[in-house]
């Protein structure tokens, strides 16, 4: 992997596009993506509808390779310690079929892949939840090639990472000014509140229900409406808010204006998200970004403002699809909303839940601090 210090003469960043299906894989290759990424069923933190069978992945690798496009495999769940053999089999399988890299989260899995496939490209998944440049140093020491940067990071952070290590950089084609809860990577709210049922198509696995671990998806509980208030038992009216409705975390939007600065800094990969999006939307986005990058790289168009109107339309389509998606996920979550375990949970347990003694007594006000 070339760092920014060495890319000067032959620098060409990769436009890395999503493939949630074989049809999407073929389409993004045809639209000019430099590389595509796809996830095998149950191993890439997506619902099965936007993961792929091993056979489809093989076909997608062949299609991409024959047209000069790299294929990357997403294995970014946190595997169970009981399924590392199965994880290893997947790495060998896809590496043998010609996949040129893997997107991974678990540090044990990163070392395992590096030992199995010394020449492959290892991307440190956004699910690692990095917060500073020394994280990049750690992952480089571990043997990773590329660090996927948090959505919230900008040029200043890129410069610091470049000064700290020579690990390659990958940015999402997202922007957000929001910091806040670190997602993905440091959040298990979804699985605390609800597990999900396995689908037959996904096969049997040794653990249950968590999005981080490959069980379909996060239910985006942060993006539904919550009531938020201080303790009702507090006598202090100044801090005892009336419950207010809010979302715990809002979403990022597509990026445009930062691209010239990122290109100047030699960012190696630009990643478009959206394996679960409509294929027409991904087609239009790959086509759009291909045009933007080509013009930036040959110097024919470096003024991003000429694309603003077009970008706005794409953002609106993106946001609309996102809202529909969150609605769908929350509708699924409601069916499990009670305190009792869902039927699918009790099925794997040897004992039944019981009611605890009543009542729950109020506690004193709880000062967390000095």
């Amino acid at each position, binding site marked *: 992997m070339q760092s920014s210090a060495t890319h000067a003469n032959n620098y060409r960043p990769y436009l890395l596009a999503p493939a949630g299906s074989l049809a999407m894989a073929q389409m993004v290759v045809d639209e000019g993506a430099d590389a595509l990424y796809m996830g095998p069923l149950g191993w890439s933190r997506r619902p099965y509808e936007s993961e792929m069978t091993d056979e489809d992945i093989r076909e997608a690798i062949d299609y991409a390779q024959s047209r000069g496009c790299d294929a990357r495999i997403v294995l970014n769940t946190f595997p169970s310690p009981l399924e590392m053999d199965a994880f290893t089999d997947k790495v060998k399988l896809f590496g043998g079929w010609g996949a040129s890299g893997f997107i991974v989260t678990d540090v044990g899995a990163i070392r395992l892949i590096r030992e199995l496939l010394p020449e492959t490209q290892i991307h440190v998944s956004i699910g690692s939840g990095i917060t*500073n440049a020394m994280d990049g140093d750690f992952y480089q020491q571990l043997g990773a090639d590329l660090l996927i940067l948090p959505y919230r990071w900008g040029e200043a952070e890129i410069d610091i990472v470049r000064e700290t290590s020579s690990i390659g950089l990958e940015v999402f084609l997202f922007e957000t000014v929001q910091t806040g809860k670190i997602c993905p990577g440091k959040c298990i709210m979804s699985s605390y509140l609800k597990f999900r049922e396995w689908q037959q198509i996904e096969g049997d696995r040794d653990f249950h229900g968590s999005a981080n671990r490959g069980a379909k998806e996060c239910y985006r509980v942060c993006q539904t409406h919550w009531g*938020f208030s201080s303790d009702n038992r507090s006598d202090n009216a100044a801090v005892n808010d009336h419950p207010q409705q809010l979302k715990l975390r809002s979403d990022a939007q597509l990026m445009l204006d930062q691209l010239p600065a990122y290109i100047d800094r030699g960012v190696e990969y630009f990643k478009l998200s959206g394996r679960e999006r409509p294929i027409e939307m991904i087609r239009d986005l790959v086509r759009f970004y291909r045009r933007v990058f080509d013009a930036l790289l040959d110097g024919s168009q470096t003024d991003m403002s000429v694309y603003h109107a077009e970008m706005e339309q794409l953002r609106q389509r993106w946001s609309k699809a996102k809202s529909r998606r969150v609605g769908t996920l929350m509708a699924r979550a409601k069916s499990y909303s009670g305190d009792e375990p869902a039927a699918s949970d009790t099925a794997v347990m040897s004992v039944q839940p019981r009611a605890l003694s009543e009542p729950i007594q109020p506690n004193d006000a709880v000062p967390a601090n*000095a």
Partner: protein
Amino acid sequence: MFELSTNCANPKQLRQTDFSDFDAIYLGDFSCMEYPNNYCSHPELLEAAVSELKAQHKKVYLRLYATPGNEDLPQVREMIEAALKLPFDAFEVHNLGVLRILQQMGSTLPVHLGVFGNLYTDASARVLKDFGVTRVYPNPELSLTEIHYIREQTPIEVVLPVHGKIPLVISETCFIIENSQSCAKKVDSNGNSVCSFPCSQDYWLNRSNGQWVLKDTGRMTLSGKDLCMIEHIPELLQAGQSYFYIQSHGETPEYVQTTGRLYRQALQQAEAGNRSDDPQAEMDVLNALSKEGLCNGYYFEGAGQTYIARG
């Protein structure tokens, strides 16, 4: 032999709380360096705290800030430098960049990986051991079967949380300040934002139609329910676990003392081959201390907020 540990954020908590039932204390609140007199961010407070706890024959571990941005790293280095001059028994890290900093600074102290270190596999435990980690806190999503497997497969200590709210997500900014209607940001005469510490009160997130409740402490969101494993202690000891932890972030001195007493009692009884005489009475006490009831997290392969009794 077992070790029962908990956490202590600052001198006030150390002063007000009876930690006599605990063998070890994790000093500092890893979620926010701005907390008043947080041991994570006040090197000048460390010596007195270590001295006091050592006088009580306890092991003392220093927590390092869990989500340091680049701008926070100098302060983290300052904390490490101060701690290395004192008789701490270990550092706790949640961030892998900080793990590298400890190596760079030549620390030879044992390192514990904290709850936000994302430890899911024995393969990761082996990697982290090479970076100086001697103890890991498994991600709360792991089942007991998986945790036992990791302990058996790796030459590394595994700490097992047995009681308290489960840390679910950590944040780089304060959710309460950003969202509470009564907590407008304040700015001092130099233009720096000043925290009014609304987190000294409880804040809760509720989704009424889903019966979902979470506790928010500003930079960390915890489970609404308290993890409770007191009736499963004999099985945990039989499985070879020996490092037990009570998560007491933001709880009262009464909470820390009561949970410590009950769990030490349960551990001692189990070590002697006995079960509690009246587990329901202990459960009732713990249930009364909780605000949203009890759960046993993910240990029995259910969603985190479920409670499964011993069969």
